[in-house]
């Protein structure tokens, strides 16, 4: 449990670093996706309880993992997927218009 936290922090930092420094729009989207996955990972990590079983109670169990973050994670995944779809649609649109994926180039072309 404790070991997951550095991974989450590193993933979030990596993703935001990519968003800040990359010029290619697809890479920016990948960076954002990395950050979002890190959040989902965090949701999974905090639901973990040692020796807990999955929250499907076909018989009584002693320790069950926390079901609420998992449900939240499901919601968050769907929302992230929707946002990513819109981003990709915008990138396709921009690419068709400028024939480039470089975000600085696009700003220059527009003038």
């Amino acid at each position, binding site marked *: 449990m404790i070991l997951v936290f550095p991974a989450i922090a590193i993933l*979030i930092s990596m993703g*935001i670093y990519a*968003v800040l420094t990359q010029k290619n*729009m697809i890479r*920016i989207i990948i960076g*954002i996706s990395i*950050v*979002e996955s890190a*959040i989902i990972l*965090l*949701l999974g990590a*905090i639901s973990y309880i040692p020796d807990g079983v999955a929250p499907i109670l076909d018989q009584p169990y002693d320790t069950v993992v926390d079901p*609420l*973050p998992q449900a*939240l994670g499901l*919601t*968050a995944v769907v*929302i992230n997927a*929707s*946002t990513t779809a*819109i*981003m990709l649609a*915008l*990138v396709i*649109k*921009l690419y068709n*218009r400028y024939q480039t994926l470089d*975000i600085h180039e*696009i*700003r220059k072309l*527009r003038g």
Partner: protein
Amino acid sequence: MHLPILLILIPLFTVFSLGLFAFFSKKYIIPLVFTSSLASTAIIFYFIFNRETRLPFSYNLGSWQPDLAINILVDHYTLVIFAAMGLMILLSVIYSLTEITRNKAKFYLLLNVLFVGIAGMVMTADLFNFYVFFEITSISSYALVAYNDKDISLEAAFKYLMLGTVSAVFLLLAIILTYMATGTLNMVLIPERLGNLPVLTRQILIAFYLIGLGVKFAIVPLHTWLPDAYVGVPITYNVLSSALIIKTQFFVLMRILYILFGLNFLQDNMITTILLVWGIFSMLFGHAAAFQQNNLKRLLGYSTIAQMGYVIIAFSLGTPAGIVAGSFHMVNHGIMKGAVFFAAGNLHKAAGSYQLNKMQGLADIMPKTSLIFVLLLLSMVGIPPLSGFASKWLILEAALEAGYLLPGFMIILGSFLSLGYYLSIIINIYTGEKDLSKKSSARAVGLKINEILPAAALTAVCIILGLYPAILTGLIDRAPEFLLEQLNYINIIIGG
């Protein structure tokens, strides 16, 4: 009584059935949208008029006991946004009737999604539910920014989308951390459990909330999307963005800060002071940047950033008078900015462009609209008989009362700065060179009644509010009770 949930359900029903209607016959789109917005407005006014008897109001979704599931709360602080919503929903729909020509069904779908998101964000008392509505609002905003399909709007939409998504991640992170620390997502139950955390942790949490929501209400280093996004979009989005969306994000941030963390914590740890300085900086930066613009929409965008600075200053004073003044300015600025955008849209019909140098001499062509426009600009500056003066005076009074002299001085300085650039626009419109060829083409553009009505109505509201500010202050004077005192808010569900 199911009234508050209806405020979310009616636009939602419209959203889902618009596709059905558009599939069979396009005739029914406009009546449907109009009816639903009329119904929403009626509900809001019902709450406004019956505020003493019906509020505070809580509604437990799913009939669960309050601490298990999601609750919806309407209290006196919510009325601040309700007041703006009550005016804006109907007027924006009226204005968009002629402005939108292609893809009407999709546009009204997005508009109604926006209403759903705003209503949900304002009323919900559950943090994750707030995040969901936050995303609903954001997604429809991104889409409306990209709606016009111009080069700049697509690019601005991408920029907005990037910043917005990263900020949403921070918001979600903050919400998850809050859940980790407290074991609940219910905003009513969190405050007592959050108090045990170390101070530094709470400060970082506040920082995450601030980054997450700050992008959306365009606090200065995070504001870069706003001026771009304002240029190539439908006027309706401009109006809704500056009157409702930005205000709502700030509104919820204040609720999170004051209810979850408490006034004492904020004041002990200098957070209110930081916000105050930040607000001043934001205001001055907005005014200074607005000076250099030659596109009207961009200028108004920077002006919105500056005006949010006033609101931030007022709210971070931490006194009841400050809250009332800030709320007053929030509503009032929404009304004024909305009206300015409506009028600017009308002027655009004649000028054909939002560039200031192309708007010279428009007063001859459209005398009435120009008069309204000038009145509104003067009100934004804060010239006495108009409502802008009232709100700025209230903020100034609250600041001086709380003992902050420097912010008071800055507010006056900011007003003078804004007078500078607004005057140049006025002079431009009234005395600029008259281009005869443009005039003849402009005369052909007759304004329809639904384009004049919103601007005129809002201007009337603006003048009335300037003469009798007590109408609005009477509406929101109990807001501080539910913002500054945590117990009042908590008792809505748990105790009383």
